[in-house]
């Protein structure tokens, strides 16, 4: 897959939202408490990402990110990673379901080329091949 540097990479959405599976991809440094935290000691940033399952208990999610104030996310992860909100929308029939894989990564990096050409493509492939997502909601911090 190549990413155009000239055109906006627009993919049409041609399904009914109520029949669609939605994934969250967040740059807000969200991960499971049991997963390795992002490496905030590295001044260049951390290029890795974490997979988050759809049935995760939101109390088991946390933030490791030192480039924004995540006190509100520490109190309620849904302000940057709206997993419980998606569940509400699923139960109300607004969306069809939550994807098998959701992704958390740390949006801060000084390694832009590696993020753009490496991590971003890996995340896109995870979503495309492994998540069964029909659409993605992207959030930052």
């Amino acid at each position, binding site marked *: *897959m190549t990413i155009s540097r000239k055109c*906006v*990479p*627009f*993919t*049409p*959405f041609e399904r009914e*939202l109520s029949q669609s599976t*939605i994934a969250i*991809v967040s740059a*807000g440094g969200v991960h499971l408490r049991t997963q390795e935290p992002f490496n905030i000691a590295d001044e260049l940033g951390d290029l890795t990402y974490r997979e988050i399952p759809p049935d995760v208990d939101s109390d088991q999610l946390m933030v490791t990110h030192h480039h*924004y*104030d*995540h*006190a*509100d*996310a520490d*109190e*309620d992860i*849904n*302000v*940057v990673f*709206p997993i*419980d*909100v*998606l569940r*509400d*929308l699923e139960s109300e029939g*607004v*969306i069809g379901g939550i994807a098998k894989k959701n992704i958390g990564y740390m949006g801060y990096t000084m390694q832009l080329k590696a993020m753009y050409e490496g991590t971003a493509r890996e995340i*896109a*492939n995870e*979503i*495309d091949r492994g998540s069964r*997502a*029909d*659409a*993605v*909601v*992207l*959030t*930052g*911090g």
Partner: protein
Amino acid sequence: MKGVPTVLVTVSPEVSAQMRPPRALYPKGFKIGNSLGRPGIRDLQKKVLRDALGLLSQNTRPGEFVTIEYPEYGEQYEPPHVKKL
């Protein structure tokens, strides 16, 4: 890979615009760390997420941001600006 439709919720529209996201919602005046609103206010979080998901099937122009005001958010914050070199 045929591509996956995406919608971005950003509180830093000027910064996010540099990556030319295909669809984006800017909840006006939300501070960094509050992409979906304030903690514990599920109705607001749900409204923002519904609006974002709604952009998937609206006739938006790729690369443009949709700004929506949510008075229930309360105190407003100025988004960060891109430093011009």
